[in-house]
């Protein structure tokens, strides 16, 4: 087990810069998920930790030792690839033991390690099979088995579940979590799937365009997104955004929408009066209610029942706006509905897209 320190790491491919100075300290035994849209640099960062990409600038330390110049084989890490990358000419047992065999481990030790891993991953009946005779889920398991037999300092996962179907993905997600609980190994997991990030991570690192946007526990990112990017990326269906102006009148703060509606806020913010802001609210926090002060009428474009709940696609002043509700009455909603925004669930972002700071004069949840 090991800690991993990433200090001001940059990466350029020719003249293209893909990572602009990443700092991250990963503690011993921690499960960290790097999440972001494709091209945000998360896989590049993982490959740099593995030693498959050179570090242009900055430093990567594993257990306090600088590893920038070390070959992947000398870093004592294991990696699970999106494509599994099983050796097709070797059977499952040979695939799993390859790392130990080239390190010239004793054959009893190899047999014991492979046996253990196979038991843990329920691979015993498959040990003599070649990868092409395995299903996607089984291949995935073998890839994990290959990683754990060596008992490396850290596990790196590069979108390991994206090639599986939805049900299998859920199952493997739970298995990865269990495996981490049992082994307690430092793990870095790259995904673009925010559900995987939310469910697996001790800490999530949200990345966008080569810059770390926010680092925190899953609920921190969900409850208090640091900026518009994180707010829009974490959560499904995604957070709704409305442009507004910040106003304070009669001692209470509010956001004035372009149509003149004043949305009450739960506290004051460190913003100029009249400042342009973006108001954010999650679909599951929007309430549908009879018309009242601060409520908005919206046209119903589409109703999507998910079984568990209902997603309503609305048009609010011509802009798309989603509502998620568990109330089945929404299935029969008319051409328009009235929505209100509970103040405690509103997120306010300033002109630069950063989360606005609440002012110290008024207390509130935000």
């Amino acid at each position, binding site marked *: 087990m090991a800690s991993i320190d990433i200090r001001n790491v940059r990466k350029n491919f020719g003249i293209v810069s893909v990572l602009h100075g990443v700092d991250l300290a990963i503690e011993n035994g921690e499960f960290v998920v790097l999440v972001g849209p494709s091209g945000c640099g998360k896989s590049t960062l993982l490959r740099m930790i*593995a*030693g*498959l990409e050179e570090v242009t600038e900055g430093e990567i330390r594993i257990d306090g030792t600088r590893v920038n110049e070390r*070959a*992947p*084989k000398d870093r004592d*890490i*294991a*990696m699970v*690839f999106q*494509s*599994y*990358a*099983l*050796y*097709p*000419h070797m059977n499952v047992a040979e695939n799993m033991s*390859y*790392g130990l065999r*080239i*390190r010239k481990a004793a054959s009893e030790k190899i047999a014991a390690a492979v046996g253990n891993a196979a038991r843990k991953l329920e691979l015993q009946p498959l040990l003599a099979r*070649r*990868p*092409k*005779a*395995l299903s*996607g889920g089984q*291949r995935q398991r073998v890839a994990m088995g*290959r990683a754990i037999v*060596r008992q490396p300092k850290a596990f790196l996962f590069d979108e390991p579940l994206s*090639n599986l179907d939805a049900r299998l993905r859920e199952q493997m997600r739970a298995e990865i979590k269990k495996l981490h609980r049992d082994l307690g190994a430092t793990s870095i997991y790259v995904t673009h799937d925010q559900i995987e990030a939310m469910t697996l991570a001790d800490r999530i690192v949200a990345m966008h365009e080569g810059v770390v946007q926010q680092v925190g526990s899953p609920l921190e990112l969900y409850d208090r997104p640091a900026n518009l990017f994180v707010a829009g990326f974490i959560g499904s269906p995604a957070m709704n955004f409305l442009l507004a102006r910040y106003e304070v009148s009669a001692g209470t703060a509010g956001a004035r929408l372009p149509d003149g509606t004043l949305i009450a806020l739960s506290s004051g913010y460190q913003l100029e009066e009249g400042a342009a802001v973006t108001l954010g609210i999650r679909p599951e926090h929007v309430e549908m209610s009879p018309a009242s002060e601060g409520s908005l009428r919206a046209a119903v474009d589409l109703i999507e029942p998910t079984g568990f709940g209902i997603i309503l696609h609305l048009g609010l002043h011509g802009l798309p706006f989603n509502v998620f509700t568990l109330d089945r009455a929404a299935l029969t909603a008319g051409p328009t509905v009235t929505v209100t925004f509970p103040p405690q669930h509103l997120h306010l972002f300033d002109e630069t897209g950063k989360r606005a700071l609440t002012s110290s004069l008024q207390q509130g949840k935000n």
Partner: protein
Amino acid sequence: MNRYSILGTALHRLAILCYMGFALFPLFWLLKVSVTPNDLLYSEGVRMWPSRMSFEHFRFVLAHSAFPVFFRNSMIVAGATAAIVTLLASLSGYALSRFTFRGKYWLVALMLLTQMFPLVMLVAPIFKMLSPLGLTNSLTGLVVVYTAFNIPFATFLMQSFFDGIPKELEEAAKIDGATQFMAFRQIILPLTLPGIAATLGFVFTAAWSELLFALMLISGNSAATFPVGLLTFVSKFSVDFGQMMAAGVLALIPACLFFLFIQRYLVQGLTAGAVKG
């Protein structure tokens, strides 16, 4: 199966059959002439099979001509060329497939350029170069020339096979503890066997049947290869077709054996299951 698909299959098979007939007919004719006795060769007209078969041409070629020498020479030249070219081309093809290095673009362009020359243009300069080195009239000289001419194409061929092997396999091996060379030898090379077999086969047949350089660089029977040797059956006044065809049939044998041996590696699909797909 409905009527249209039966018709489609039948037409498809028929087309393949026509092609096979077209491609194999010369070989059949070769065999037919080689077993036709001399007295029947011109007297029977055009027949699909002679009324009497004889192996006299084979006996003569094996016992009384220099054919065994030509055969041995060709084996040495084609075998050595195939081995050397495949070894070098697999290394260079791997480098072109996996590494980025300075001048890679120009190197590839240069290799392509060598493929654009008509070989006839190069006969004189090559003779001039090899002559002072004592490499004319020697099998080594032929191996050197054939190797040089076959490497560019073989490199591209091997590169395309390496390109087909996912990069992740090597990366996984490197993370598992292998060096670059170990990953190449233990993971990539076994998966490239079809490519190696194809390259070996291609270069072997190219060297086996090469005539131009063999004719220009070799004089005399001792270092002549089989294609040059075939010309000895052509004299000023006649062509001994029977013996020539018998020699041709014998010359086909090693090529056939060679492909029989490598055909199991030529079968694709060895990499199935490496990655999702």
